[in-house]
Structures are given as structure tokens and as C-alpha cells.
């Protein structure tokens, strides 16, 4: 048919953007799958003492999720913008879910000091970051969008530039201030 109707994730993403809650559920499901897939790979590789090819792994996950392979005929820029927004929403919700699961306690889980759960590296608190990002958006919407696209959407500088119709130099410039601002906001919180 001449009207474009892509499939799978691409279609879901568009459906979601058309307000279809079912599409979002499906997307959440797919992201969730990827998260667990990634998590398993982390554990496997680390258990075996292999150096993890993190970049390739995560990039692959994003590719699987946002199906860029099949959006060549579409407007990539638009697609990227959607991807960042969507991933933010899903990942932050996912992090909230995990947090409340920890509080609620799984069937066989012993109440743990949360510090024990967090691995050696200090990971970004997605929930706190999400809140800080809202505050940043009130001050400077573009910078917040850039963080959304790069950090949540997994986009490159060039893709972010494409998505927001700004130059890559502007993306980098905005990124450095946004990053400092967010880091400062999160440190104050902690």
C-alpha cells in the first residue's frame, strides 16, 4: 500500500506517538526484553572475566529496539527524537519498578542494605536524573532534549544534531553544560 506502515518497533513507535497505549505496552515489553538480554550478557561476560564489549552490546540493543535498519525511507530525524523520548519514559519507569520491587521485597529476598545492591561503580540514578532533567527543561528545553536524545535515546552527537536540527558543535557545547548542571543537581541531592 502506498501509505507507509512499517512493522514491529517502528510501527509501534509511531502507534505510540499516535496515542496508542497498547503500542507503548508492547514497546515496554520489548525494551524490557532487551534490558534483560543485556543484563544476562553482563553477568555472563563478567563471570568469565571477559572484557565486555559494552559499546557494541548497547548499540546493538538500541538498533534492535529502534529498528533503524528499516527506517531508511523515513525521516530519521523524527524517528530519533521519538526514540529518545520513548526510551526516557520506559527506562525511568523501569528503574522505578525495580526500586519499588526492592522496597517491597521479593519472595526470597532478604532486606538488604541498598548500598549492597549497587555495584562498585557508582551508577547514575535514573529516577533522580529524570527529575533533574525536568528542571533543566524549564530553564533550557533544548539542552534537556539533547540529554534525552543522547543519554536515553543512545544517539550519537550527529544523530542528535539531526534530530534537533542543530549543528553537532551546538550539541557538544550544550551537552557539556547540561552534563555539569545535572551532575551538580544530583550531587546536591545526594
Amino acid at each position, binding site marked *: *500500500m*502506498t*501509505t*507507509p506502515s*512499517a512493522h*514491529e518497533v517502528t510501527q509501534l513507535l509511531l502507534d505510540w506517538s*499516535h*496515542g496508542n497505549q497498547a503500542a507503548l505496552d508492547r514497546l515496554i515489553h*520489548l*525494551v524490557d526484553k*532487551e*534490558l534483560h*538480554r*543485556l*543484563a*544476562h*550478557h*553482563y*553477568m555472563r*561476560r563478567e563471570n568469565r572475566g571477559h572484557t*565486555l564489549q*559494552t559499546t*557494541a*552490546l*548497547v548499540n*546493538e540493543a538500541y538498533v534492535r529496539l529502534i529498528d533503524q*535498519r528499516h527506517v531508511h525511507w523515513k*525521516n530519521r*530525524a*523524527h524517528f530519533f*527524537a521519538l526514540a529518545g*523520548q520513548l526510551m526516557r519514559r520506559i*527506562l525511568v519507569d523501569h528503574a522505578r519498578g*525495580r526500586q519499588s*520491587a526492592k522496597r517491597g521485597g521479593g519472595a*526470597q*529476598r*532478604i*532486606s*538488604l542494605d541498598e548500598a549492597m*545492591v*549497587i*555495584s562498585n561503580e557508582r551508577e*547514575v540514578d*535514573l529516577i533522580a536524573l529524570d527529575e533533574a532533567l525536568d528542571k533543566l527543561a524549564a530553564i*533550557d528545553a533544548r539542552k534537556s*532534549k539533547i*540529554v534525552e536524545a*543522547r*543519554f536515553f535515546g*543512545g544517539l550519537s552527537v550527529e544523530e542528535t544534531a539531526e534530530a*534537533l536540527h542543530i549543528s553537532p558543535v551546538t550539541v557538544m*557545547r550544550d551537552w*557539556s*553544560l547540561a*552534563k*555539569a548542571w545535572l*551532575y*551538580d543537581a544530583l*550531587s546536591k541531592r545526594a
Partner: protein
Amino acid sequence: MKPEQWQKIDKLFHSLLALEPDKRAAFLAEACAGDESLREQIEALITAHDQAGGFIERPALEVEARGVAADFETTESQLPISELSGESISHYRVIVPLGSGGMGQVYLAQDITLGRKVAVKVLPTDFTRDKDRVRRFQQEARAASALNHPNIITIHEIGQFDGRHFIATEFIDGETLRQRIAESQARVAGDKDTSHKTLKVHDILNIAIQTADALAAAHEAGVVHRDIKPENIMVRHRDGYVKVLDFGLAKLTDTASVDAEAPTRNQIQTSAGMVMGTVNYMSPEQVRGEQVDSRTDLWSLGVVLYEMVAGCSPFGRSTSSEAIALILEREPPPLVRYAREVPAELERIVGKALTKEKEERYQTAKDLLIDLRRLQHRLEADAEMERAAAVGAASERNVRTDPASTPVVSTSETEAQTVTATAHPTSSAEFLIGDVKRHKGWSLLVLGALVASVFGIIFSVYRFAGQRQSSVQSQEEMKVSRLTSNGKAAEAAISPDGKYVVHVLDDGGKQSLWLRQVETTSNVQILPPAAVSYLNLTFSRDGNYIYYEAWDKKNPYTLYKIPVLGGAPRKLVEDLDSTVTFSPDGKLMAFIRGDPPSSENALLVANADGTGEKTLAVRREPASFDNWPNARNAPAWSPDGRSIAAPSGVGGDSPSESIIEVRVDNGAMKQLTTRTWWRIDSVEWIRDGSGLVVNASERSSSPFQIWHVSYPSGQAHKITNDANDYRGVSLTADSKILATVESEVSSSIWVVPQNDSHLAKQITSGSSDGQDWVSVTPDGRIVYSSRASGNYDLWITDADGSSQKQLTAHAGNNDHPAVTRDGRYVVFISDRAGGPNLWRISIDGSNPKELTQGEAWYPDCSSDSQWVVYTSRPEGHLWKVPIDGGEPVRVTDYYVPGAAVSPDGKWIASLWHVDPSKIAIIPFEGGQPIKLLDTGWNRVHWTPDGRALAYVDRRDPSNISSQPVDGNPSRKLTDFKSDRIFSFAWSRDGKQLALARGTLTNDVILISSFESSH
């Protein structure tokens, strides 16, 4: 913060970063000129900048995935651990992972030197970091390995390899007592008669006696187990022999035993080892952190015994602290409460084992063993006497008369109403069979009534296969029958004999698995609704089992098999990305597994029980075996057994897929067909090897259809040829019947006078009318696209449904009509001359004219009827072209697809790319948006008065809402309670609304006689 202030900060921040660090302070002091707050803010940002390092530099997906991994690692996890498969640990070659738990990962392996099968347990690194602990563990494990007892697992070796500690033990082909308990519960789930809820007393005693025997031997040798629980007791399939596992392992986790000075409950709760297990089986002295001796094992065995009888743990609670409180303080409820038939003597034995004061408990395993044996002998003697006294009565006693144990029998159409009224939930179809036998009379009556009640809904439709294929040789009719009609089927597979269809029912996000008998329409639930995804269904070759992939958070991408009539699912393979296909003899299966980090994916072959996995062929990106998430990616084993056909991506700039044939003997790959598709969902061989049935989509914009591909010529043609999407394809053994899920859109034209939904009237009866767009002429006629002719063509109808007339014919696909304001022309998108371009016809269908050379979407006309505004593809920019053709003029150089021109012709409303919840209003002459409105990311129409934008609000049910341009709140214009609205348009006077409205349903269909169509 004021924008100026922030701009200042932005500027200063970057200026400072450009300076050498030692020059920053002076610069800042000068720049801020006494504005202390500004200086502080910038200083904080510079400090943050210097400290931030890798902060948010790794994508959020990775951050969250690490969080998930951390959660898993701190809980008792059931993770796929297949990565060692094919590799070696010391002189053990790993065959397949058997499972994992707190105490490490267990693999089935082959002892290379001795040739025997062994189980190798690799301990978690967390436990082995502490050298002292490791030493104590080794001492204890060696002591245990010295135990030579038939009920204690034989330890072959305790070793170290690659920095990891492992234990090699005898391999037991059996199940854990935990599984055994779970199965016995699953078997009788829903059965109110709780006396059947558990294992038989005979089995319980058998298991307890053997366990006590093992403990007696160990205790005599001075070895305390410390972690007796159902997970550590295995029952061998072959002979029911009990094997106790993991002697001494508990010592690894038992920090309390070396730190007996200050035992507190708190310590136990936070010790690393505890996280891995459960406190439910711990003795009071153990939870108090006191020194433990052999009597702790007797308590734990008491808990296990209790659980075998009662079906639940005496102290089991959701949190450990609650469980601990019960262990220390509460007497468990008497067993008779759970099992009326429990012998009083068994109640006494359990009570004695579960005495909180260890001095009053059984003092030795031997004592417990003696009591258990004595009871067993007595019960056997009693049974013997009873048998003698009541010969012939046995069959009577087997009859259960509990009316509550009626099975869930349901038909897809009448699901809840007809049956559940009399049914009691059970997950197993065994009861169906059982109860039909027992209550033959009324059960058959119920079934009969069900068949009758749904018979009217079963129907067959006939379609011409390959309508437009010139290659069609036979016009024999292919028969299509619909098996379900609730619209909620997600996937289906047909049994080799064609008698059953298993399908996934997706209802509100919860999925369940149903077995439908094709002839009778009876429908049995095999797996109850759960927040799980079931996919990749297939029957084993012998038709006895259903293989499926279940996805939930703990076990994603996991293959299970379940007996066709229900029962306990058995986990076979983890981490697979496709439906499995079986070798002709049914002994082997093949599937696809992607490995994202390496960009490799493989076609693997394993035994039908999941063991013996080995890689047959590997493809690397950009080439791949299909491993799309949420797709079947189904490969197919050829009827002669020599090769496997697999859907595969061929990579490159224009992505496409093809079928690859992989030889089973050497893994050699070759292209089976030169034809490519955009995406292939599944392939299935036809029995005689003459070809394959394929579910694939030709282009990104075309639906998934069923194809026939000849072998070896590779020629392909469509079996189905319609606008519906099909999911999956499954064939009977004789290849006569094909099952698939049809996703069908039904859309027809409605008119709504006075914008009153209650007056809505359906005026066309097509199934694809106006699905993409409708437009209304100045005199109130409705132009829409429809597939009634076989292709998408434009049609026109009067508002009362009369005078329906086809406007385009024999000219490719034509859709997305927009009538010029003067009513002279219809502009639309057509692929008659190649790519989808913009065309124009007169309102009577004559004089077609091509208006663009480049690809176009979404046309709309200017108010003076001089221009057509459209969206270029793929860029998504707006252009306009004169209605009589000519040079297109650019309107925007940014992405705003789907223009709608305002009634006064001054504005264009279009989708705003930056924020998908908004619509941009742009001057007709172009330039930047002057306003953004919240409408959701929907294509809009201007209301006839030009004051608001109208859009379809949500789906199922859909309604039309309008968002005033002045920013006032939006409001709902229609009040439909059901169905979707696909498109809409107003009459010029705004008094009548034309709608394309209908449903989207997913149902299982069976297609037969499809082979004659090629």
C-alpha cells in the same frame, strides 16, 4: 531563573572552560562583578564539569541493564548460563547448563578422561574470595566426599580452574524435591480436595527415610549438612532413589558459625550468604546465629517433611524477618489441617523434629530414621490388610465425586459465559479427560451444548488465491475457515494430525495458552492468563508436546515443552531467538540464537529435550539469521532431513531478507531463492519437499502474506493476497492444512449528521473503505479509497450510500484522496508509475495527470484550489505544486508531515517533529511554526469554522476531539463507545461528518487446498 541569567551562565561557563584553570578565578571575579550568586552558580558548574567524568556518557539502557544485572546477582537467580556450553572446565567438557542457584551454576559435563557424565558446579566468586572460608569449605567437602552412601551424591573432584572453584559430582538424571512438590501441586491445582494436594504418604516416607539415612551416615562421620531443603534433595527418575546434595557447602555462607560470640538476628540478615537462600528451613539455633550441630539438620528435615505433607512451609513467609520470627516463636499449625488423612504418628514425628529446643528434638538422625521406618512398615501392613478385606472395591475408591473439579472447557466464542459458570479453574486438561470419564453423562452433555452454541459462528469463506497473479494456473478455490473469532489471538500452531490448534490468547496484556480441538470447537486452557508472553509455538513431530517460548522477567527467551493436554511445563533451552523446528524423526531440533555483542548469530541443533546443543552455522552482521525480537524467525527442517531453511537478512544498504538453506551434515549455506522480501516471519516445508510455505512481507509498506516458494527453483508466489497481516505459518504433517493468525482490519464509511454520534449511519459495506483517508466534495459526496476491486482504488458515494462509483481502475494502488475546494479534481497518491507519486483526476475519474516526480505523501488542497500541498518522502518536508502541474515549491525545510490547509487558506497544520504530542501551525507561505498545539501526534483536520483542529483521539474506542487554536481545552466531538475511527472529514457546511470506522481483529484461521492454487 530568568532566560537572560541562564544565557549569561551559559556564555560564562564556556568562556571559562576555554581558559587555563589558573586564569579562571580572576576572569570570573571580573565577569560577575559583585554578583555573588552568579559567581557561585558558575563555580559549582565548573566544579561539576571537572568532576563529572563519565557521568551520563554511557547510555541509559546500559545503566538500567546493569541495575537489572545487579538485582539478579543479589537474589537467588535463575539465569541462563549456557555460555560455557562446549567449553571445558578442567578435564570436563561442558554439555549443557542444568541450572543455577545461590550456590553457583551447575553444568552437565563429560569427564574427558573417564568418559562418564558428571555434574559440575561452579561456585560464585563472591563466596570464594575469602580464602579462609574456601579452605574450611574444602575441608568439609572432602569429608563429605569421603562419605560413601547411596543417598549422598558422590563427589568426584573438588578443584580449581581458571581461578574458579568447582565441584564435580555424579550426574543424577532426576528432579529436585522442590520440583517434585511443585509438580504434585500443579497436578491438582484447583482441586478443592486438599488431600490430593500433596505427595502420597508412601512417597513422602520413602523420600524422608532415604534422606534421614544419608544424614545418619554423614553425622556419624562428623559432617553436618546445614542446608537441608527441597532444592538439595534430588529424586532420580530411573528408580526414585534420593540423593542429598551439597554437603558442607552451607559452610561457605555460614559466617555465623565462626563468629559465635555476638550472634544477632541482624547479622544473619545481612550476611552475604543469606541473600542467596531462604531462612525457611533454618533451625532456631541457626537463625539465632548460634553454633549448630547435627541436630540442625533434623529440624530442617522436619520442615521438609512438613512441607511434603502440607504443601506449604510451616514458617514460610514473604520476608525473612517474618519467617525468622515464626521459626523462633510459633508452633506450626497441625498437619491434619492440611491433610485430613495424615497418620497421627507422622504428625508426631514431624512435631518432634520441629521442637524448638534442640535438646528435646530428635537427638540423632538414626532415631528419626527408626521412627520413619517403623511408620512405613505399619502403613504397609495396614494397606495389605485392607486390600485383603476389600478386594474389588478399589475401583470405587478411585472415583472422586467432588463436583468442583470440573475442568475449564471453553469455546473461543463463548469463553466466559457458557462455561465458567460451572467450571472451576484448573490449568490442566488432564482433568478434562479424567472427568469426562468419571461423569460421562453430564460432561458430554455440556460439551454437546457448547458445540451447538458455537456452531453458528464457525464459517468458511472462500477467496481466490493469487487474484492478480498471471502465473495462477488453477482457479480452484482455497478454503479458509476461521477458528477463533474473539479477535485476540496472538499466535497459533496446528498439530501434525490436524486435530488440534494451540494458540495464544492476548487479553489486556495477559496471555494464556489454549488448545482448540478443530472438529469439536472445544477449547481447553493449557496455561492460565499471566503477565507472560507466549510465542514461537510449535508441536513436536509426534504431536505429544507443545514447544513454546515464554518470556517473563526472570526467564526471558526460554523454551519450554508441555504435554499437549496440559501438565507441568519443562524448561529446555534458554536464550533462543526463534521458533524451533524438528528433524523428520523428531529427535533433534534446530533454532536460532543471536549474540548481540559479537554481532553473530547462529543456527543451532540440539536434542529434542534441549541437551546436546551444538552450532551448525554462524552468520555475522550485516548478514544474519533472523533474530528479530517478538517475531517467529522460524527455520524449517527439510522433509529429507538433510537441510534446514532459515529466514535470513542479507544486509547491505537496502535491507532485505531471503531464505538460506543450511546443510545439516556440514553447515554449508546457500541461498534457497534469489527472491528477497522486506521481512520474513516464518518458513515451513511442504511434506514432499517440493517447496515451502513462507510468511513474509514484500515491502516495508506491505502486509505480511503467505507465500509458496517452489524448491529447488525458488520461484515464489502468494497464497494469500489481501490487505491483512498474517502472523506465523504452521502446517499439518501432510501439508494439507495451514494455520496462521490473521490480523484483519475492517473499515467502512459512516456518516454522522449534526455531529451527533447517535445518528451515525453506516453507508458502505466494504472492509477497507477509507482506512487511510476520506474527503468530501462541495456537494457532500464522499471520496475514499477501498480495496473492493482487489487493488486500492478511489471510490465516490453519495452521503446516503447510493451511487457508489469507482473512480480509478487498473492503475496500481490509489489512495489518500483530497478533493479540491472547487470540487473539480481529486488529488491522490498512486504507485501506477512506480514510486508513490502525487496524481490528479477529474471528479468523474477522467483525465489522470501526474503532478510530482518525487515520492509524496498526504496531499491537501489550498483554499483557492490552485495548489496541492504535500509531504515529500523520505525527508518529510512540505512542498506545494500547482494543480495543473509544474515546478513544486518548497514550503518547509524541516520535518512536518501531514499538512492540513485551513479553510481560509492562510495556515497549514502539520505534525511537529520535535515533540510528538504537538501539531505545528505554519503560515501557508512557509517559514517557522507560529504556534504549537497539543493534539497528540495525530494528523488533523481543521474544523469547518477554522477555529480548531480535529483529530482521532485514541483507539478502541476512538472518538474525534477538537483542539481550539486559541489554546482553550480540547473537547470530544463524538461519543462512540466502540470501534476505531481510521479517518474522517467534514462536509463543507460542517453539518455532516464522514468517518471510516471499524475494527482490527486477530484470529486463528485454517487454510486448506492452498496447494492447488499454485
